[in-house]
């Protein structure tokens, strides 16, 4: 058992928890939280893969990929949250 393997398994669990939460939650905000957990789990698995080779430098391509992924995730999260807030506002307006 190497640390990369251990973290890879931890990432797999994170994906599962995020996936279950994103599907089964009633709250839109919690679904977006689940979507973020799912993404983080995938990133951990990718970097664990990059670290499986015992060398001085891990694969920089995977690292650049995950860096891009983190920035794209925050963009998607912002748009999703804006939609959730707007949906809530519009539903409120209809009820009143």
């Amino acid at each position: 058992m190497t640390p990369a393997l251990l973290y890879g398994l931890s990432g797999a669990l994170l994906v599962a928890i995020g996936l279950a939460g994103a599907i089964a939650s009633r709250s839109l905000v919690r679904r977006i939280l689940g979507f973020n957990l799912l993404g983080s789990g995938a990133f951990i698995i990718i970097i664990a893969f990059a670290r499986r080779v015992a060398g001085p430098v891990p694969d920089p391509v995977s690292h650049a990929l995950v860096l891009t992924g983190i920035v794209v995730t925050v963009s998607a999260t912002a748009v999703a949250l804006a939609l959730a807030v707007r949906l809530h506002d519009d539903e409120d307006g209809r009820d009143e």
Partner: protein
Amino acid sequence: MNGVGFVDMLLAAAVPALAAAVMLYRDLFRATVVFIVLGLTIALVWVRLDAPDIALAEAAVGAGITGALFMRALGAIPGPPRGAIAVDRVSFPWLAVRGAAVVLAAVAALLLAWAVLTVPSSEPVVTRLVRDAAPESGVGNPVTAVLLNFRGYDTLLEVGVLLLAALGVSTIGADRHAASLGGTRVRGPVILAFAHFMLPGLAVVAAYLLWIGADQPGGAFQGAAVLAGAWLLSAFAGVAADVPARRMPVLLAGGFLLFLLVAAGMIAINGGLLRFAPATAKWWLLLIESGLLISCAAILATLVFRLTDDERPEAGP
């Protein structure tokens, strides 16, 4: 990195445990706080996996900016009052959906665990290609070399995605009136003193991350997240310089346009999109990153500010 240490076991166990807490806490505010703690824990995981660039990005963007986004969204969505669940939600077969979700998640976890356990431990070809070409990239940090030189195309489009998100959030979020960046004030002497104390330091840290990113962990996006944090802090303290609305598009899109201009200019100079000559690459990359630092900071701050209006009509005393 050698064997599995106590810290590794602690972190590997803490990540799924915190994630479960994020999903299971009834109170969304608590869930969001735990989510931010999880982000910082994952930043430590990145350090243990020899990925310091990602650790910086995770702490600043993943935990910091994303956490701020969720906090701001929760301020606008004050949670359903008790017992006020809509009728269609009661009749919806939640039990069946939850059961199916758990089964699906279990299958996904098993497949991913199988993939993690059986992946071959040979070095990918692309790792060697990057190592061989690294001296020609103009920067010493291989991750920065991949991001801005070898795969600059990806990063160009990534900035495009950020810009689109800022546009989308501005369109969806603030429909009543355009909220300026100075709209949100937190009153009290503590935040004012804290802002005066922190802001110069944060600006220096952002510039340092950009400069050091050429050879050490760091880079434009990490610096931009720190700068965006400084911008948010100054706005909450009420000391932010008010950017006129007509200047904001220049600030938001400037980095992307500069990147695009340099990318196209390389066709004329070196005969290929984003093809840099080894001798001058360092300075072109620095120019691109400087533009990205300012623009991405403005975009990240805009995402947080424009997510919701500050003067909410329904928010009475």
